């Protein structure tokens, strides 16, 4: 075998603390190495050209590049050796940046370690063999999970791109958090007027199938060929016939359950259409409060329904769909502020969340768009906004900034003045974070044109005094304590990951971060991809985001899906497990341990049980290879012999030393 070694300087990233020419010189002494050199930037165009040239000039069979992490450039170099006419698996990478130069300061030690890592790569490469990818067809259909604004955008873009789309939403209507908002910043335009047409497009688009009141039950398969089961929950209304006339909603006598769409500010009837622009505009029964379903008497809705679509016997329904790609857009939840005892833990009625305030502002809200305090229905004059409730606060395990609260508070301060001209808003803030387009100007407007009083400091406590609430906080700019008598206190609550996100992530094999938000493949270069091929992220499920960012990500995820499904065939990674049937005793241990269900039991022609790997499902994790008692499964490209060769290169067996 003829091996070429290239030691990358990475500018001063590696060369600063590693003697690269010396590593290159040492590499020339390793077995099978016929060519070795150092290069300024191996990943650059001249750097890659030099590798290709060397393969041709020196007639190389394999290439080792010692540079950064394989996560960064393994693909780059594999493509380069392929262009030089080699198989892409005849390439090995030694990480001498993250593993050496960035963590050690001593040049001698670093140089030695770099040489050893190169030796390891050379020993492995000597045992590499060419691998060929298999090609397979894809299902031209997309699953979008979550019908908020990000999911809506992704679904519409995919559908416009010619793909069939299945949109699954767990609430009764699509629209998500945005549908609950009154106005949006920084344009102060009506939220549902912007979102409404898009929601209608979803309902009318020939390529989109919409399942609301539905959740993803299970996900199997792999990129291009996912099998998904969706649970359509019983609504007790036959939606094929329901016209959304609302007669049943008017007549329903049970109104004891809080209305989730109105953030529990008022009660909702047991059979309900959540809001006037709901898509689909169909009624659904809340099984927990319906008198017929809980006590077996009433049934008024069934009597008044002109199309007889009420069905108290309805059951959940499971739907199986095959899709080629999945977009996750499950959004976020609001932080539960009851963890703040100093804000009353819910004891004071006139302390509400910003989303509740949004419902009070909304014309379709419980007060018809008039700001009334929950306790006595009076119009508040002094409204105090408290920022960073459940954001940037380690004490409640929410150290991150939720990003949009500064903006929506400014918007609400402006709207308060619009609704009640003689009102005064106070905003307690830590600092203002408004970096978007026209955002800072918007906050300035709240302060300067609308006279919102901004006080920098946290609020220590809220306590009632008479029919007012005293908000006590610090003004850290003036260095004094302040007390503001408030008629209404609005808590700008931060965002946290949606309920059930972690469980959904398990089904999709997408990892959550420590706060439950899904982790993207690369924070800068792959913001909507995940580490599971074919699964993409959009919107606040990846981290708190405002509407423009969510829509942008929805479109980005859609473009990734369209790119993926535009290929007629996909290639599978050939670095998967292989069973040696001669050694396999058919014990089935590998089948039990495989986390991806990639191994199945088969029979050979004599009827003996054997294991067989499903190439396209196998993720190449290698758990089966260490499980197999016979050593009958080997992971291609990472066989026992290759791993052992690496280990021996690092620490030569003592036996050799003793016998020499």
């Amino acid at each position, binding site marked *: 075998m003829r091996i070429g070694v290239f030691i990358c300087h990475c500018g001063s990233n590696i060369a600063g603390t590693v003697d690269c020419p010396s590593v290159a010189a040492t590499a020339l002494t390793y077995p099978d190495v016929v060519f070795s050199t150092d290069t300024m930037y191996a990943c650059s165009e001249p750097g890659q050209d030099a590798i290709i040239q060397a393969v041709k000039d020196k007639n190389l069979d394999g290439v080792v590049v010692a540079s950064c992490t394989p996560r960064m450039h393994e693909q780059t170099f594999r493509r380069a050796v392929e262009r030089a006419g080699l198989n892409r698996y005849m390439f090995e990478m030694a990480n001498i940046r993250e593993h050496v130069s960035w963590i050690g300061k001593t040049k001698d030690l670093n140089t030695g370690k770099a040489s050893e890592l190169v030796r390891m790569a050379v020993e492995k490469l000597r045992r590499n063999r060419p691998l060929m990818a298999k090609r397979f067809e894809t299902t031209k259909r997309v699953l979008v999970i979550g019908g908020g604004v990000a999911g809506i955008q992704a679904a519409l873009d995919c559908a416009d791109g010619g793909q069939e789309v299945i949109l699954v939403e767990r609430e009764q209507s699509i629209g998500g958090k945005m549908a609950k908002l009154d106005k949006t910043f920084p344009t102060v335009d009506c939220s549902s007027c912007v979102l409404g047409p898009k929601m209608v497009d979803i309902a009318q688009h020939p390529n989109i199938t919409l399942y609301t009141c539905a959740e993803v039950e299970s996900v199997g398969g792999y990129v291009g060929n996912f099998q998904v089961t969706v649970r359509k929950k019983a609504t007790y209304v036959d939606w094929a016939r329901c016209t959304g006339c609302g007669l049943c909603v008017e007549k329903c006598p049970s109104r004891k359950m809080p209305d989730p769409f109105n953030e529990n500010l008022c009660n909702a009837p047991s059979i309900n259409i959540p809001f006037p622009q709901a898509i689909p505009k169909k009624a659904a029964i809340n099984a927990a409060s319906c008198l017929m379903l809980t006590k077996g008497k009433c049934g008024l809705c069934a009597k008044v329904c002109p199309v007889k679509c009420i069905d108290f016997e309805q059951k959940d329904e499971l739907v199986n769909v095959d899709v080629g790609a999945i977009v996750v857009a499950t959004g976020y939840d609001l932080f539960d502020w009851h963890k703040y*005892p100093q804000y009353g*833990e819910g004891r004071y009625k006139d302390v509400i969340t910003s989303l509740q305030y949004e419902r009070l502002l909304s014309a379709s809200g419980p007060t018809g768009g008039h700001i009334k305090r929950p306790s006595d229905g009076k119009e508040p004059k002094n409204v105090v906004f408290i920022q960073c409730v459940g954001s940037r606060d380690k004490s409640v395990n929410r150290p991150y900034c939720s990003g949009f609260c500064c903006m929506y508070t400014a918007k609400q301060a402006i709207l308060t003045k619009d609704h009640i001209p003689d009102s005064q808003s106070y905003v307690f803030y830590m600092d203002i974070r408004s970096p978007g387009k026209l955002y800072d100007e918007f906050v300035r407007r709240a302060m300067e044109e609308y006279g919102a009083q901004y006080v920098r400091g946290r609020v220590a406590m809220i*306590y*009632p005094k008479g029919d007012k609430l005293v908000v006590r906080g610090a003004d850290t700019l003036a260095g004094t304590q302040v007390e503001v008598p408030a008629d209404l206190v609005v808590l700008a609550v931060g965002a946290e990951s949606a309920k059930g996100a972690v469980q959904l992530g398990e089904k999709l094999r997408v990892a959550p971060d420590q706060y439950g938000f899904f982790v993207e493949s690369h924070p800068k270069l792959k913001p909507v991809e995940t580490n599971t091929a074919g699964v993409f992220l959009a919107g606040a499920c990846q981290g708190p985001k405002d509407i423009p960012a969510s829509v942008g990500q929805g479109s980005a995820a859609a473009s990734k899906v369209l790119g993926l499904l535009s290929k007629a065939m996909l290639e599978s990674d050939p670095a998967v497990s292989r069973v040696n049937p001669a050694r396999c005793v058919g014990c089935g241990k590998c089948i039990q341990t495989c986390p991806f269900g990639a191994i199945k039991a088969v029979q050979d022609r004599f009827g003996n049980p054997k294991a067989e790997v499903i190439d396209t499902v196998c993720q190449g994790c290698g758990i089966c290879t260490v499980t197999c008692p016979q050593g009958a499964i080997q992971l291609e490209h990472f066989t026992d012999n290759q791993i052992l060769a690496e280990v021996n290169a690092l620490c030569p067996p003592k036996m050799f030393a003793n016998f020499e």
Partner: protein
Amino acid sequence: MLKIAYYPGCSGQGTSLEYDTSTRAVCKALDVELVDIPDWSCCGSTPAHTVNHVLSAALSARNLAQVESMGMTKATTPCPSCLTNLRTASHKMDDPEFKDKVNALLDVPCRNAVDTQSVLQVLAENVDPDLIKGKVVKPLSGIKIACYYGCIMNRPPEVMKFDHHENPMAMDNLMALLGAEVVPFPLKVECCGASYGIPRGDIVHRLSGKLLDAARDVGADAIVTACPLCQMNLDLRQGQINDALRENFRIPVFYYTQLLGYALGIDRAELGFEKLCVDPRLALGRIKQPQQAM
């Protein structure tokens, strides 16, 4: 019968004599035996820990060692300030290095094996509410009470480990059990100004004034407290506060043990109502006399 080592604290010997006597009386009535700690000394009060943490802890540790010498593991004190010092010393001595420093100052080393609780916590957690209810002979119905815990009885929560640190309910529940109408008092754990009464009276006037104002605001006939210093600031200084703030507060400030003893029918002499500065008779007069069966 529950047997607990009792640390009266210095104020119990003087400024809050009525708190001490009423505490002893109600505990006796509720089958809680208080055993005085022999030769106890001052816990260090406010000044000690502002000067030297080890020395301050040693003062408290000496008392804890005394409890250990009695062969007991549980102690109680009515005074939240003493409680804070005893518990903080104990908490800090969980660090062996700190414990060694403290023990170097003591004749008898402290093993740090004593759990100190406020009398309120003992009553709330170790006495069956039904037992208390059964012993009530004069229910407190008719009187509106604001329960005031003071700032250190429940805080910091990781040291005090009792009730809620922002909205404690133990005293509220106890008073409700006795038949009183407990009004929601929003400033339960606010500071009264504490020992600033001597160097900076104006601070106490402002802070305690706010408490009295809040109590009046929620319609309380009386404030009930568990802290000698709070009681003094609110009661003894109520006249000063009125002068300073041009107010006219006349809100009696009881120790919760006094009203508990009243409800249990304990002899007035042991409850020491006459030691209160703001005349409590109007408030006590609101308590409806029980229907006489005689």
